[in-house]
């Protein structure tokens, strides 16, 4: 076991980790927006839109993420949409994360009692005001643990983007391995980096959760 040959590749490893973080954060933010919009559509009255969202959820939750990335990267160019590797992976992972987020946020919205909505309506608030100020904050709190778990799964799942040659951490690892032939050392190091990033995010989410959702829980 010799880790020293890897030292000269430290900049590539750092760059790969940064790309992994960017891919994760961009996909999570976009996926979260998709999740909120999808959850609202699922609870709405427009039946065709509900079917559309339901179809999207089932499609993206029941097919491999790798194939989703391949379709965006290799198939969409046939229809005139050619995206670079990073962007293609970001689009596919956003849709993947969004499909899970829709269900998580919908469950969060469902957890808010109807009486809270009525209390808001009875004070003369509009539908949007009730949603924004009364339903959404506690719904997000209820959805938060599941969303953050999904975020960590997304972080680990970004390694699939290496298959379309996006310069993320796993792709960089493959490159270093091909140069050094130190498979164990390379994958041990990136495993430690993924672990450190995942644990750091968990700690961050715990702090953010405490700051954002300060109100006491129901006894």
């Amino acid at each position, binding site marked *: 076991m010799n880790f020293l040959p890897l030292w000269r590749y430290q900049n590539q490893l750092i760059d790969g980790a940064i790309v992994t973080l960017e891919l994760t954060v961009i996909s999570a933010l976009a996926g979260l927006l998709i999740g909120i919009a999808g959850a609202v559509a699922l609870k709405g009255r427009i039946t065709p839109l509900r079917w559309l969202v339901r179809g999207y959820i089932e499609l993206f939750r029941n097919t491999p993420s790798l194939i989703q990335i391949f379709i965006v990267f290799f198939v969409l160019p046939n229809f005139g949409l050619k995206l670079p590797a990073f962007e293609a992976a970001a689009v596919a992972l956003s849709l993947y994360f969004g499909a899970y987020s829709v269900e998580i946020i919908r469950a969060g919205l469902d957890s808010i009692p109807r*009486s*809270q909505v*009525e*209390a*808001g*309506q*009875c*004070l*003369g*608030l*509009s539908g949007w*005001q009730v949603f924004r*100020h*009364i339903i959404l*904050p*506690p719904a997000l*709190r209820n959805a938060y643990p599941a969303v953050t778990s999904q975020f960590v799964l997304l972080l680990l799942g970004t390694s699939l983007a290496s298959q379309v040659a996006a310069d993320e951490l796993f792709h960089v690892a493959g490159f270093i391995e091909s140069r050094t032939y130190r498979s164990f050392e390379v994958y041990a190091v990136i495993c430690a980096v993924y672990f450190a990033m995942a644990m750091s995010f968990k700690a961050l989410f715990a702090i953010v959760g405490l700051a954002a*959702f300060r*109100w*006491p*829980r*129901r*006894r």
Partner: protein
Amino acid sequence: MALVEIRDVHKTFGKVEVLKGVSLDVEEGEIVTIIGRSGSGKSTLLRCINALESVDSGEIRVEGQTVHARMPDLKKFRQRVGIVFQAFNLFPHLKVERNITLAPLLTGRIDKAKARALAADVLTRVGLADKIDAWPEQLSGGQQQRVAIARCLAMAPHLMLFDEVTSALDPELVGEVLKVMEAMAKQGMTMILVTHEMGFARNVANRIVFMHQGRVWEQGPPAKLFANPETPELASFIASAK
């Protein structure tokens, strides 16, 4: 013209007709208490007055305006008609001050500079000025219900509806809520209450309305109604409530 005019209102849920032709007038400044057994349609009637439920037929008018769920200025109407629920329905993620000022701020009734003063004022009226920075979860049931009343008062309603507001409270907490309602009655607020608190109904209400099987079965001044019920149904209800 009465403040609230209810004419031959019918309301059905599925196959169950809950209101079977209810007619009732409530004058400005009047305190009307609706009593009756569970399932007699009391709460449904209150919810119809506030357009939380639409009537199937008949008409409800408040301040001359016909009430229904699709009325064009429903939001403005609801600012004039406050309703307090059995389960308080405070917003758990907002402190007491924000619970009270959220609607006045969002509806443009007050600006931010006056928000805290408004909250302090209505909290003083319900005896909870020191709880302005508390979370709802930190309050007792009685205190939460008083904050719910204060939240309605902040909208300066012309009419207040109370839907069994003491039913979910421990017996020792009922008195503090009734005291607040009694003070509001003395200040001339028009109130329609659904309650099982017979003592309160007798002492505070101008008129008692007994509902039975979806109809107004009997109504009149408390002293007369409790002393000389005209129908066996009301006599039996009063006897069972003692």
